[in-house]
C-alpha cells in the first residue's frame, strides 16, 4: 500500500506535534469468581489477578513498541466491588481488597484499578452500603484504586439518599483520593476512563476498552483549514475525529490479539491533558469563541460533539464508554484558566453538560460550602442526565482553599481551581429523604 508524503507527514504531525496518543488501554475483567462468604477466600482468589496484570502490561508495552504509538496509561476494570461484598458485607474487607489490588497494580505497573463501584439507583443494597461507607477510607489509603457510585438512571430514578452519603464520604477524602471517584447516572458498562471504568453486567469475561486523546489534532485541523461555513467546520472535525478513532481501533485490536481476549469498545471521547495544545477548550476557542464560557460555548461544543460522534462512529463498530468531549477543568489548562479568570462558572459547565457526556468534572469546591449545597449541585447534574437520558457525572475536589484559588495535583490531574458555588440556602430541599422517581422518559421503553 502506497502513501503520499503528505499522508505520512499528516500522521507523523498528529503523533508528534499535536499530542495524539492513546490515553488508556483498559482491560475489563469479570472478577466475580472471587465471590465468597469467606473474606480470606475473596482475597486469595483476587490475588490471582497479579499474573493477568503482568501479562496485560507486557502486551501493552509490546504493542506500543511495535506500532510506535504512545500509550499513556494501562488500567484494569473489575466487576463492581459491591457484588463481592453482598455475601460478606464487612467494611474491613473493602479496605483489604483495595490495599491488595493497589499493591498488585503498583508491583506490575498498572496505573489504575477501576471498579470500587456500586449501583444504587433505586436503593442501596447491603454490598453497595458497605462500599459507600468505606469509600473514603479505601481511596485515602490507596493510590491507584478508583470507583464510582451509579446513583441513578433514566430507567430507575435517582437515589438521593445515596448521593448524600457519597457527599459525606467525599468530604473525608484527600484531594487526590477525590480525583479517583465520581457520582454518576446512566453509567456505561464498558468505560475505559477512570473513575467510571468497571466491568459491567452483560459483558464477556474479559475485553479491552480503548480511550484516545486527540483534542490537539482537532484544534490544529480547524486552525489549518480556516473554515468559512459551519458545514466546512463540521466536515473538518468529522474527518479528524475519524482518524483519531482509527488509531484507537488499531491499538485495541492489537492489544486484544496479543492477549487473546475480545476487543471491547473504543470510547470516542476527546480527553484533554494538562499539556499545552491538548485541550478541548482550545478547540472551542479555535472555533471562534475567544474565551470558553462566553456565549456560543454550548453551540460550539454541541457542533464539536456531534461531528466527533459521526466521524468516530465511521471509524469503529465498537463504540462505547462515555463517547463525549470531556471538560475536566483541572486536566484542561485553558478550561482551568477560564475558571480562574471568571469566564467559566459552574452554571456554564452545567449548560455544557447538556450537550456532552461528562458533567461537572475535576472542579475544586471549598469545603466551607458545606454538604447541602454540594449535594444540590450534584443533583442538578444527575437529574439533567436522567431527564436527557445521558451519561453524566460529577467529580469534585473538596479543598480547604476558597474560590479562585488553586491546588496542583500534579501529572495528568493538573491544577484544580476552586469554583464559586452561589451562597443560596437550599437545606429545605436537600434535607428531604428518599429517591427521585423515574422520569416520564422511562415510559418510552415500556
Amino acid at each position, binding site marked *: *500500500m*502506497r*502513501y503520499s*508524503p503528505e*499522508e*505520512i*507527514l*499528516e*500522521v*507523523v*504531525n*498528529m*503523533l*508528534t*506535534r499535536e499530542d495524539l496518543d492513546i490515553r488508556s488501554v483498559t482491560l475489563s475483567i469479570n472478577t466475580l469468581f472471587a465471590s465468597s462468604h469467606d473474606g480470606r477466600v475473596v482475597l486469595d482468589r483476587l490475588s490471582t489477578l497479579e499474573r493477568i496484570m503482568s501479562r496485560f502490561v507486557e502486551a501493552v508495552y509490546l504493542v506500543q*513498541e*511495535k*506500532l*510506535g*504509538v504512545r500509550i499513556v496509561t494501562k488500567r484494569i476494570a473489575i466487576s463492581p466491588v459491591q457484588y463481592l461484598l453482598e455475601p460478606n458485607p464487612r467494611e474491613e474487607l473493602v479496605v483489604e481488597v483495595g490495599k491488595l489490588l493497589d499493591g498488585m497494580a503498583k508491583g506490575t505497573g498498572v496505573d489504575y484499578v477501576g471498579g470500587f463501584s456500586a449501583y444504587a439507583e433505586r436503593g442501596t443494597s447491603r454490598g453497595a452500603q458497605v462500599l459507600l461507607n468505606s469509600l473514603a477510607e479505601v481511596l485515602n489509603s490507596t493510590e491507584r484504586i478508583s470507583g464510582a457510585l451509579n446513583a441513578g438512571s433514566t430507567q430507575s430514578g435517582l437515589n438521593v439518599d445515596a448521593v448524600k452519603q457519597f457527599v459525606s464520604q467525599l468530604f473525608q477524602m484527600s484531594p487526590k483520593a477525590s480525583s479517583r471517584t465520581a457520582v454518576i447516572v446512566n453509567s456505561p458498562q464498558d468505560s475505559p476512563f477512570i473513575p467510571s471504568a468497571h466491568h459491567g453486567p452483560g459483558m464477556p469475561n474479559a475485553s479491552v476498552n480503548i480511550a484516545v486523546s486527540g483534542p490537539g489534532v482537532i484544534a490544529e485541523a480547524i486552525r489549518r483549514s480556516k473554515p468559512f461555513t459551519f458545514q466546512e467546520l463540521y466536515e473538518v472535525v468529522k474527518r479528524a475525529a475519524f*482518524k483519531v478513532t*482509527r*488509531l484507537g*481501533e*488499531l491499538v485495541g485490536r*492489537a492489544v486484544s490479539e496479543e492477549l487473546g481476549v475480545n476487543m471491547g469498545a473504543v470510547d470516542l471521547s476527546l480527553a484533554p491533558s494538562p499539556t499545552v495544545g491538548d485541550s478541548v477548550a482550545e478547540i472551542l476557542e479555535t472555533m471562534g469563541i475567544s474565551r470558553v464560557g462566553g456565549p456560543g460555548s454550548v453551540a460550539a461544543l454541541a457542533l464539536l460533539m456531534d461531528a466527533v460522534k459521526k466521524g468516530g462512529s*465511521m471509524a469503529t463498530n465498537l463504540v462505547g464508554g462515555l463517547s463525549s468531549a470531556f471538560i475536566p477543568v483541572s486536566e484542561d489548562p485553558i478550561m482551568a484558566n477560564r475558571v480562574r479568570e471568571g469566564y467559566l462558572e459552574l452554571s456554564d459547565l452545567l449548560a455544557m453538560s447538556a450537550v456532552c457526556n461528562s458533567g461537572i468534572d475535576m472542579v475544586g469546591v471549598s469545603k466551607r460550602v458545606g454538604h447541602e449545597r454540594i449535594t444540590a449541585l450534584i443533583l442538578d447534574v444527575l437529574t439533567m442526565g436522567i431527564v436527557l437520558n445521558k451519561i453524566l457525572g460529577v467529580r469534585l475536589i473538596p479543598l480547604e482553599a476558597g474560590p479562585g484559588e488553586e491546588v496542583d495535583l500534579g501529572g495528568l490531574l493538573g491544577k484544580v481551581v476552586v469554583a464559586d458555588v452561589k451562597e443560596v440556602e437550599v437545606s429545605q430541599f436537600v434535607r428531604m429523604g428518599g429517591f427521585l422517581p423515574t422520569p416520564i422518559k422511562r415510559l418510552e421503553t415500556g
Partner: protein
Amino acid sequence: METAVIVVIGVDKPGIVAGISSALAKRNVNIVDISQTVLRGIFAMIMVVDVEKSQVSIGELRRELQQVGKELGVEVLLYHGEVFKYMERV
C-alpha cells in the same frame, strides 16, 4: 510484506541516506520506497521499509536507528505501517 515507515527529520547533509540505509541493510530490512520533503520548514526523508525479514524486533530497530540518527544529528521516527493504513485508508 510487513511495512514500517521511517521519517528522518533534520538539516540535510551528506551521509544521512547512507547511514540509515546501511543500518537497515545490516538487519535485513528492505527499502520499498524513499522520498524527500519539507516538514515544519526542515528536511524530512520518508522511507517505507519491509520489516518482515528483519533480524530484530521493530522496537530494537527503532532504537538502533535512533542511535544512528543521534550520531548524524537528525531525529528518526519509526512507526508500523498499520498506523498509516488505519488512519489514512478506509
